[in-house]
């Protein structure tokens, strides 16, 4: 289980730190790769731009914020789902937004889950624990050519 990697697409460094801390608190030891905006996330996934030739292994779970500089989370999601290699990767939208429209569009574009980041850090830890348990332990995905 620990060999499964996580891609965290998050522009807020505080949230990055707190998310990683929450994983640690839950003893999720999986490698967390961080992309700080949509472009970086896509470059990472498709080995483009600054990741040209890097041949990164595809993550087993993508935690995707929606409000991102340059290319936003929904566009990233659309790209992920329209690409044959990445289309089955579980994407959990992890966002501050409680807008119904965001929720609906996320699912329209093929999000696997939609989690609103709680302000209460204890709740956040609990949410992270459940996420890790479900997506990294319980859930099974079609085989992906990594």
């Amino acid at each position, binding site marked *: 289980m620990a060999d499964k990697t996580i891609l965290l697409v998050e522009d807020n460094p505080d949230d990055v730190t707190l998310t990683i801390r929450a994983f640690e608190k839950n003893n999720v030891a999986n490698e967390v790769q961080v992309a700080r905006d949509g472009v970086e996330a896509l470059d990472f996934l498709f080995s483009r731009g600054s990741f040209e030739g890097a041949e990164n292994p595809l993550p087993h779970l993508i935690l995707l914020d929606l409000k991102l500089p340059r290319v936003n989370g929904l566009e990233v999601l659309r790209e992920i789902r329209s690409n044959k290699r990445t289309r089955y990767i579980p994407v959990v939208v992890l966002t501050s937004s409680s807008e119904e429209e965001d929720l609906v569009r996320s699912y329209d574009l093929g999000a696997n889950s939609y989690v609103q*980041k709680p302000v*209460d850090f204890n709740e956040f830890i609990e949410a992270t624990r459940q996420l890790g348990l479900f997506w990294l332990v319980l859930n099974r995905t079609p085989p992906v050519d990594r």
Partner: protein
Amino acid sequence: MWHGEIKNRAKNGTYYWVDTTIVPFINRNGKPYQYVAIRNDITSRKKYEESIIREKKFNADILSALPGIFYLFNEHGRFLRWNENFENVSGYSALEISKMSPTDFFRSSERDYIRSRIQRVLDDGESDAEADFLTKDGNGIPYYFTGKRVELDGEICVTGMGIDVTQRKAAVDALKDSEERYRMLFENNPYPMWVYDTQTLEFLDVNSAAIRKYGYREDEFLSMKITDIRPAEDIEILTRNVKNTTSALSHAGIWQHRLKNESIILAEISSHELTFDGRDARLVLAHDVTEREKAAEMVRESEDRLRTMFDIASVGIVQIDARDGRLILFNQKYCEITGYSSEELKGVDVFDITHGDDRENDREMFRRAERGDTPLYINEKRYVRKDGEIRWVRVNASFIRDGAGNALRTMAVVEDVTERKLAEKAIKELNETLEQRIRERTIELEAVNRELEAFSYSVSHDLRAPLRSIDGFSQAILEDCYGDLDETGRDHLERIRTASRRMGRLIDDLLKLARVTRSEVRRELVDLSKLAEDIVRAFREQEPDREVTVAIDTDLNEKCDERLVQIALENLIGNAWKFTSKRPEAAIRFGVVQNGHKKEYFVGDNGAGFDMAYADKLFGAFQRLHRADEFEGTGIGLATVQRIVRLHGGQIRAESEPDVGTTFYFSLS
């Protein structure tokens, strides 16, 4: 022998009478051959005789010339003398009369009376009588008889005259009649009348109408002068008038009269001069015209007012000859509308000042109304003013018709509606551009909405992130540096965490309120009972330890927006749940009441309640009636509920009492 009296003429021209006897001497043949005349001058005797004869003839002439009948009879009733008239009037011959007695000429009923009058003549020397004189053919003629006792040739006689009084009697009767008529006319006249002495001005007679009208008794009137019933200021002119009135009949005009009760009336006076008991007087008829004058004054005022209204009316008023369309009468405003002076307008054909494009239609409408096809003529058309300016007018006309129904004249009210017409035109143009403007406006609004949504999105996303950092890192410090912190430091960090979590809830509630505000109401039939039950179940699951008695009326169905009403009920039931948290036996009730014709739903509790003095703050955003350490809350929930209720066209109100409980009533239409 011849004997005679011969009148001879003397040489000196005078006459003398001679008694002459002529004796003839006759021969054997019987023929006179000689005459002897014996003459005796009898002139003086003849003169005496002539005077007797003249006297007799004179008496006879007088008797026959008398207008009446003459009679002389002795005390035994034998007629001795009478005149021709007696025979003519009575119809009896002289022979007949000589055999009759005086009483024979009267009806038997009057004979005693006549006898007694004759006796009086014989006793006292003279008397008279009035009775009908009976003629031979049976008629009775009213006669007045006089009688005087005379002695004639030693006999006691009665002589006298009778005068036909038919005329006089008729005159007396007529006079009596006329007096009665006068009295009746005077006394019973409905108008006050009086007679006054033109010298002394004293009242000589008044009728009962005057007594009634003026209030004075008859004896008061008769001790007054006509100046006494006049106001002081009129007396001078009155006395002058009385002196100067020369005509027998005069209308003195209308005067002020003062009644006994001091009130003043207006009396129209007619008078006629007459002699009253031998005094120069005037008969006066006074007609109280106070009311008539008042009415006339009112009519004058009313006419003045109408005239004034006509003149100063803010609409044109015009009278038109229906036969040729020419203006007969018009007011100032009409001149102003048309721009012509009243001199210029006289006789102008109304169609000539009508705009050429409107003329045909106007004429047709006018003719239709004139024929009676349409009850009224109402038209809006254009006038071309004298200065060429075009004015829109609304003309409302009716027709004055003769007995046969032919229109004679038209009375029209002409209103200048140019401003209104221009406004209508502007409105029409405005309407045409309105849709375009709405489209533009909608696009603008949509843009604003999008901006608002973007704003909300930012808020929801960007405001929460720092709070998460604050809470998260506070927690991190508490965990990682627990040993380095004393009790106060740890307490402060906890406070930071509490505050940030509270702010998170505030943001969530605000976003909810914003979303509700933007919502459109989509009505469908909603089972409110079930909705409430689901909400209560969720609360029970969150706080399974609480014991709350919840009563929900069944079958509460309402056409409303389910999603919005759910939010409202969550808030209301949530409040009830929260504010009963300190009650050992908490109770919540959801139901419906009929308030007039309005259905009101209610959510009631037996919770903390509040002071109704603050009820006006209840529905304002961020308004709280309890401290945060008593009951948590953001103060946005009820603002959201109110928005939802209002979006449904309903109303919400609260009834509460501290420590007894609160009930919210709301309608959804």
